[in-house]
Structures are given as structure tokens and as C-alpha cells.
């Protein structure tokens, strides 16, 4: 089992949990396990073609999987996978939505 850390903006799609335990021998399998448990999360992580979105970075422990074996990177028990989406909060310099 690996632990996937869910960032605040995406927690609403995983019943507000800060992390989710998933099975899978690769990062890709673990993420597929995550979105099949929580289908609403899928469109935030994957494009319609099923590719990981460019603004979502996936880390295995402290390393970006783009510089490992991407989604084929092997996952071991107790590994930490982090989803690191871009956030832009700070000072309002342009009209904010909402």
C-alpha cells in the first residue's frame, strides 16, 4: 500500500481526506486506483484522452516522477505519492472569481 497525499483544492473530490491509501505496483496503477475509488477526481488529474494533465505534478517521495520512470515508476509499500497542482493564491492584482 502506498499513501497518496491529496492537496487542499482536490480534497473535496475524495470526501475531504488529506491522504488516501491505495494499492498498485506503479505510480500509474496507484493513481488509477485512486480515481476509480473517487471518480469525481478523474477529470482533475487526467485529460479526456486519459493523459495526466500538464499542470498536475506527481511526486514519488521527494522526486518528480517525470525524472524517474513517469507513470511506470515502481511503488513500494510505505511510499508517499504527492499530487502537487499549481496554486496561485496571494495578493489580488486582477479580478478574482467567485
Amino acid at each position, binding site marked *: 500500500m502506498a499513501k497518496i497525499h491529496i*492537496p*487542499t*483544492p482536490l480534497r*473535496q*473530490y475524495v470526501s475531504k481526506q*488529506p491522504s488516501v491509501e491505495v494499492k498498485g505496483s506503479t505510480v500509474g496503477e496507484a493513481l488509477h486506483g485512486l480515481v476509480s475509488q473517487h471518480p*469525481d477526481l478523474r477529470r*482533475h488529474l487526467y485529460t479526456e484522452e486519459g493523459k495526466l*494533465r*500538464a*499542470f498536475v*505534478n506527481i*511526486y514519488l517521495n*521527494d*522526486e*518528480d516522477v517525470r*525524472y524517474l520512470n513517469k507513470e511506470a515508476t515502481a511503488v513500494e509499500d510505505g511510499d508517499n505519492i*504527492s499530487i*502537487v*497542482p*499549481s*496554486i*496561485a*493564491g*496571494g*495578493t*489580488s*492584482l*486582477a479580478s*478574482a*472569481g*467567485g
Partner: protein
Amino acid sequence: MATLTEVQSSPTLSNDEILRYSRHLIMPEVGMEGQLKLKSAKVLCIGAGGLGSPLALYLAAAGVGTLGIVDFDVVDYTNLQRQIIHSTSDVGRPKLDSAAEKLKAINPFLNIRKFEARLASDNALELFRQFDIIADGTDNFPTRYLVNDACVLTGKPNVYGSIFRFEGQASVFATELGPCYRCLYPEPPPPGLVPSCAEGGVLGILPGLVGVIQATEAIKLILGKGDPLIGRLLLVDALGMKFRELKLRKNSDCPACGTHPTIKKLIDYQEFCGIRGEEAIAEATASDIQVEELKKRLDRGDDLFILDVREPHEYQICNLGGYLIPVGDLPMRVNELDSSREIVAHCRSGGRSAKAVNFLRQAGFKKIHNLAGGVLAWADRIDPSMPKY
């Protein structure tokens, strides 16, 4: 040994300044040499808001010689929960004036340069060239990418901080050997997938934490001491009080700082980041209903179904007695709505309900309106006793 001319052209500290900075001067990591570096340094703060407040206050106190601030906003009552450079009596004043006054009060030796403008592709490069370090604390993606690209093009380090609810990120981008923001995020998320602070909220002390980290990194870069956050992304979780660190690598294919960069000048960043969001809002405007009309129709007993797409904790602050389905839950809960009834969707100010209206229209709902201006407009124009937030 320095020659006489070098000594004359370098800054010196007056006796007042020596006393003021004495706790720096007795530290070997700063000392007279470091304090003079701080005095010669020019830092540009993008924004005098949540992150910019602690950042500018500490840089001013520490003795950074020149502090530039870019901002064109005025102080709003809802800013005071976190933007500690502004006081209650400053509400309505330009943030630049309010900030400059506080900074001067802390340190009269400070040289403040105020830029009352929206940072844009046609002014960023010229502005950045006048400074040594850029500190980015803006709240939107177009400005994030603009600041990054302008830092790469002018060769200025970008001391980066970003916050959302109770999570923050900090790093130092666009140094000569380190990665830039685009190495991490080549492209922005489509509008609507990532909520803004105005929608998502932010814990008031969080910009304090992250802004002070930015100030620390700026000071370290000026002093040339310590281990800066270059090639590292610091993640701050204030709720769990956990600090984690991720490795960042310079991407050789990066469009801004890679080996064959494709970004050689600044582009239209609104277009780069925002087209889809504007379309969504434009589509919804056709079916907008004004608060006055809604009031009139409710008063005469029309059968209207009020759909509130805010979050439950917002509903507790104030509501129009509507049926609550947060916009993120709509796809799952759409079967709770009766498409034969006329629906008026609303949120706080009209952004989220515009998205909800678009979604429902695509789901086949025909009789649906978006309440223009949301509960804020209702409080302003119909019921002044309703609290605003």
C-alpha cells in the same frame, strides 16, 4: 584592500543605522559587509497584499535599501484579516500609499518606489531591470506566468510564494542554474478547475508564514549566505503544521529557460491562461437575472426555485433560503433538481453560479437564470441588513 574610490562609491552606514542594525552587525553571517549589501539591494514586491505585507515589512525592517511595490488596488475591508500592512483606517485608500506609510514609519532610511499599475507584458521587463530580486505574491495564474517569464528574460531571481486555504508553496525560481516556474508547471490549469482565494478562502495567518519565508529567501540571496530554496519546492501545511520539501529540476525542454527556449518575449498572459473562463461567463450572461427583478418576482409569488451553489459554511453566513448544492457536487446531485421548474442559481458574487448555469444548461435544463452579483448584490441593493463577506 579596497581603493579609496571604491570606498567612496559604496554605501556606508550612519551612526543611527549602525545602532538600528546592531543585532545584524554582531552576527558573523551578516556583519557590516552584509548590512551594506542589504542597503545596496533593490527588491521589487509584486503586490502589497497577503504575502506582500509581511514580506515588505520585514525587508524594510532588515535594512533592504530600495523596495519597489507594484499594486493598483485599494484597501478593502475583507483584506484586513490577513494583509497586516494595512489598518482599518486605510480602507478605501490605495494599498501603495497605505503600505508606503507603514514601511517609512518602520524604517525612514528606506527608499520606497511606488508603481501604481497593473503589471503587464508592456511594462514588466523595464520595471524588473531596475531591481535585483523580484518577489511574487500575486493571486492569479496570468501574473504568475508573466512574472516568471519576465524574470527569466531579465535574469532576475523570482522569490515565489503561493497560498490556498491552509496550504502554501515557496521556492526560488529563475536563478542562473536553477529551475523556473515553467519547469514545474509548463502550462496553467484551465480556469474553473482551481478555485481562487476569493472562492476558496485562505487562513489569515498563512500568508504571514509564507511571506516571511519569501522575505528570508530574499535576504539570503542578497547576503549570499545559507542554502536558498533553489531547486526545492517547500510545501507548508498549516493545519497539520507540516513542512515538506520536493526536488525541482531544471527542465532542458522548458519553453522559458530550457536549452532551446521558445519564449523570447512576453506574450498575452490573459489569453494564455483565461480564454475558457471568459467564455463560460459570457455564455451565462444571456440568462442573467438582476436582484431587483428576482425580488419583484418573489414578492408577486412566482414559482421560482432558488438554487444556492455555495458551500454549507457560506450558507451559514447568509442565505436567500435557497436549496443548497455546492457547485462541485452538482454533477452528482443534479437529479435532485426539477428541470420543469424555473431555477435561479446564485453564489456569493456570480462566478460559481455562472459555471453552474452552464453545466445545467448542458445537462438539458432550459428555464435557468444566474443571479447577477449573487448575495453580495442582494445585500447591496435589496436587503442592507444582510452581512457581506
